[in-house]
């Protein structure tokens, strides 16, 4: 069927974010040769065995091609036996050889298929694994401009497509070409007049077919277009169901729906009809060839030019000849989509990775926690600098609050501290060591971090808290949960700490946040980052989380980004950011006395209330 839909079923727009369904099958043969070369490069390890498979496939095809010749000889022997004594031994002899050939052909073909299936799966597995590793090697910058849906569709849709087509096309290509050429040669060798008529009849048939295909293409495109429109209409009607209802817009929605639906009917039956034509047409080409071969053959036999066995042989040749033709057409289209899919996969794998750090010698086992920003300048792109010349010194154990309006660059500061992004200019130092001299792993080990969006994965509560730190004991997990006030809740769950957190798990957003705090707590690093950790929960839960975070902060140098000023009043140092720069800093009382931006921020709220 021409319309190859990727059934994504229920999960069409995957949860939120900037994802759009990527049409993986949208054949976009940018550079077939290049993509194919890379794909072949991936198969290098298997080249020898692939070659073996192809040779086996070819041999199998050749066995099938010589078959009709044997049949033809058998027929002639039987035909001779009509009038005179039959040479049964010779016939059986031929039949046995042919049976063995067919048997071997089957075996070879299967081995070929088996090898190709295995190689394809191994190669695609490696491709998938490479993409997965690649994700973790790319700078965060990359994800700013790429949607998750796009990457996800490369891991599944594109690779699936490669697997499917590579598995079939390569084998099919070789056997088809062999069959096609082989049967052509055999036909000409057997009888050139018959061969010519067979080839001509097939050409006529296929000419007819391609005419229909080119005609039907238009209806297919039209059908897809109308389907797309219909999709859009259904989507917006359902998404705005409440509005449609209250505004009594049902009639209007139905009218638009019926308009599109009626237009769809027109193109739908036409394209359905056209694609339905393929089969009878293929049949006809077969039949037509068959008839032509029969007639021409009969005439030639009548003349005594050929024996009757030749007709029998040709009846099979004509099938062997037409079959690979349609297969080749299939292979051609599927190779195109393989190329498009591999192009997308390799494009991703070619992306520039994070710099290699294996030569960095400096290492901080642990840190006191002094942090210094020295003339830091940074922009997500060169022409849009968000942090200009930022300088600050923070002493070990201090609580630093970063406040300011959205877009002031608060989170950016954290991104730089963790080296998720590299500074354009200046330097950040921990305990006097520039972080650019340290490996990223090393830096990350010095920090624990709680973010605004509570990220939990499908696994048990225990796994979520331990998260990749094998050295953490179960007791430590429990202790952390007790400290954040989660222990009691966890114990009420039927599976306790082994409760799996999935869609069905009924956790409030506050509880989820507490788990991520416990996760940070068991890491016990000297530095702490809290990036708007409470902004997604309501006031009451916030108080609870605040308490947990206060415990977490003990003895750590902490950076707190907060929306609500009440939570950071007690910070040792408050940095007020605006437009990428610190415009004020000091503690709460000092800043209020200054009567500057912070003062304004803090007080304007009350003006509003009364």
């Amino acid at each position, binding site marked *: 069927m021409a319309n190859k839909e990727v059934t994504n079923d229920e999960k069409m727009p995957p949860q939120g974010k900037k994802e759009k369904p990527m049409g993986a099958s949208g054949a976009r043969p940018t550079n077939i040769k290049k993509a194919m070369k890379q794909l072949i490069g991936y198969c290098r390890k298997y080249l020898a065995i692939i070659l073996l498979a192809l040779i086996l496939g070819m041999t199998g095809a050749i066995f099938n091609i010589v078959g009709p010749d044997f049949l033809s000889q058998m027929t002639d022997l039987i035909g001779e036996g009509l009038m005179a004594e039959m040479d049964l031994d010779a016939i059986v002899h031929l039949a046995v050889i042919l049976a063995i050939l067919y048997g071997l052909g089957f075996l070879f*073909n299967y081995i070929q298929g088996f090898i190709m299936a295995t190689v394809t799966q191994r190669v695609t597995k490696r491709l998938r694994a490479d993409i997965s590793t690649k*994700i973790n090697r790319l700078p965060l910058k990359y994800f700013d401009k790429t949607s998750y849906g796009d990457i996800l569709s490369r891991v599944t849709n594109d690779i699936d497509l490669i697997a499917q087509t590579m598995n079939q096309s390569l084998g099919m290509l070789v056997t088809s070409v062999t069959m096609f050429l082989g049967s052509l040669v055999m036909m000409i060798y057997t009888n050139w007049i018959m061969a010519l008529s067979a080839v001509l009849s097939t050409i006529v048939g296929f000419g007819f077919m391609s005419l229909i295909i080119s005609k039907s293409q238009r209806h297919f495109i039209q059908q897809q277009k109308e389907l797309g429109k219909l999709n859009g209409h259904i989507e917006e009607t359902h998404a705005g169901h409440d509005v449609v209802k209250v505004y009594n817009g049902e009639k209007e929605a139905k009218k638009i729906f019926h308009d599109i639906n009626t237009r769809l009917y027109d193109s739908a039956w036409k394209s359905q009809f056209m694609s339905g034509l393929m089969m009878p047409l293929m049949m006809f080409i077969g039949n037509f060839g068959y008839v032509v071969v029969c007639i021409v053959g009969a005439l030639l036999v009548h003349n005594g030019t050929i024996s009757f066995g030749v007709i029998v042989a040709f009846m099979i040749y004509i099938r062997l000849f037409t079959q690979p033709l349609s297969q080749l057409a299939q292979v051609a289209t599927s190779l195109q989509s393989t190329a498009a899919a591999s192009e997308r996969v390799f494009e991703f794998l070619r992306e520039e990775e994070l710099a290699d750090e294996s030569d960095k010698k400096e290492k901080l086992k642990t840190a006191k926690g002094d942090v210094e920003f020295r003339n830091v300048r940074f922009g997500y792109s060169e022409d849009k600098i968000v942090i200009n010349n930022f300088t600050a010194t923070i002493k070990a154990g201090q609580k630093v609050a970063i406040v300011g309006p959205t877009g002031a660059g608060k989170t950016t500061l954290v991104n730089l501290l963790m080296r998720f992004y590299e500074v354009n200019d200046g330097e950040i130092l921990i305990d006097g060591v520039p972080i650019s001299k340290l490996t990223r792993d090393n830096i990350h080990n010095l920090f624990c971090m709680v973010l605004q969006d509570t990220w939990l994965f499908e696994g048990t509560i225990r796994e979520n808290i331990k998260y990749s730190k094998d050295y953490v004991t179960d007791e430590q997990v429990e202790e952390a949960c007790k400290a954040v006030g989660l222990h009691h809740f966890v114990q009420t769950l039927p599976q306790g700490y082994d409760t799996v957190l999935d869609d069905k798990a009924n956790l409030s957003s506050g509880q989820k946040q507490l788990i991520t705090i416990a996760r940070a707590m068991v890491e016990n690093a000297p530095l702490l980052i809290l990036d708007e950790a409470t902004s997604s929960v309501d006031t009451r839960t916030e108080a609870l989380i605040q308490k947990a975070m206060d415990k977490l902060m003990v003895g750590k140098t902490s950076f707190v980004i907060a929306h609500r000023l009440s939570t950071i009043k007690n910070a040792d140092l408050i940095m007020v950011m605006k437009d990428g720069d610190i415009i004020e800093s000091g503690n709460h009382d000092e800043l209020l006395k200054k009567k500057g931006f912070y003062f304004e921020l803090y007080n304007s709220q009350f003006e509003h209330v009364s």
Partner: protein
Amino acid sequence: MVKILKHLEKKDSLLILGCLVFIVMQVWLDLKLPDYMYEITMLVQTEGSQMSDILLQGSYMLLCAVGSMGAAIIVGYFAAKVAAGFSVRLRAKVFEKTMSFSMEEINGFSTASLITRSTNDITQIQLLIAMGLQAIVKAPILAVWAIAKIMGKSWQWTAATGLAVAFLILLLSIVIFIAMPKFKIIQGLTDNLNRVTRENLTGIRVVRAYNAEGYQEAKFEKANEDLTKTNLFTTRLMALMQPSMGLIMSGISLSIYWIGAYLIYNAAAVDRLSLFSDMVVFSSYAMQVIMAFMLLSIVFFMLPRASVSAKRINEVLDTEAKILDGNLTAGKEGLAGEVEFKNVSFKYPDAADYILQNISFKAHPGETVAFIGSTGSGKSTLVNLIPRFYDASDGEVLIDGINVKEYSQEALHNKLGYVSQRAVLFSGTVLSNIAYGDNGEDIPDEEMVKKAIEIAQGQEFVEKMEGQYEASVSQGGTNFSGGQKQRLSIARAIARRPEIYLFDDSFSALDYKTDRVLRNALKKEIQNATMLIVAQRIGTIKDADRIIVLDQGKVAGSGTHEELMQTCSVYQEIAYSQLTKEELEVG
């Protein structure tokens, strides 16, 4: 599957009958072909037969081939008409059904799933019907007929053919019973792989911060390995298919000639020629029989998918909307614009806890009543009970003195101007969006639309757009900012001139200044309409005639802003905590 076919109509059965007739004709012609072959064989092998006789038989053969194609094309035409017509009708039924759903049913299915059901799933059924009419009907006829023709000739040949068919069936059952279930498992494993990748992507900062790259990759490796293992099994199994099919095809020819040699060897000299012709023809028939079974196998491959689709479509069609229409069209006189809740409680179906408990209040005509509370306190749910997105579990919701359940929904909705939390725009123009729907009166003209947009503070940006009021709105309103969308959806409510406005957190996407100016304009222009406002910002609702504070589904306080600041601790808490945040956002 059968159930869904009941949606076929009378004129379809005529077309299907037509299909049947032409399929029979096609099969007859297909099977006639070898008969002429038989004649030709006889002619060729008989000394002294005329050239013209051979050509005559040949042209009959050609005629058969052409006729068979013609019949097939007609069948294809009928089948396409039936299938496309069926799918169009079914799709319309599904759409009409969903339009009658309340929010409960819509949310039960999810929008994404409803789209797949009305497009992909229906396309599946369409394909099955089109293929089915051609293959399912044809295969048995072809098989039976061809077998009947074969039967009389020689039991040895028939047995050989039977063996080939048995082998074919065995092969297909392997696929259907061993490989098919695996495909389902593969779907699950792919989802799993997807999930792990998504997890890594969404948590990329956490993954990096905890140096957990290795942990994630190990998890991926496991999912990858599971998927690859199952994939390997099925692809290796499926690799068996093609060579086997080839073997069956070539094997049957060989066997027939092989057996034929013995039969002719043992036959009397007179019978030999006709046996020889039979042999040649028989191999053609045998091929037809096998083709018929292969045809059937295609349907077997399609059937499981289509029946899943059919089930999903039936689910939609069988779902009855829980909200039923009343028959009143007008409320009590003199009470136009009054909203009253009497001891209303609400819980979502299947939920254990009540979202709203025992809520009572009354909004008199022309009053503004606001609702505030933390997330999950039930304020949006409360508003949803008025247009009957859901019905109250206990208690009564009264509009104009009459229970909302007694109105026809159309009449009820005509009284309301609803603005949802998430601004909804439809593809079309600004004008068509504002004049959207039907309020039982005239469609708002351009003047009214302009006025509404002006009140909603949208005049400035709309008039800056290309085409102004005729500016196009793309699907989902993606060419507008959040604040602009919200203002347009407010304008849509204003253009409707309702008795009662429902603002479900509609002001949060606006900045402070616009929020205030808009509300002032609303107050000035619309004096006699009742307004119910759900808000998160205290600033938005400070001036309301009455503010109702909700906490965990119960009324925690009610009164004016000043009163509540004195008496209601929940309200104070909200006021203090969020004002700082707001101020920050303004900066």
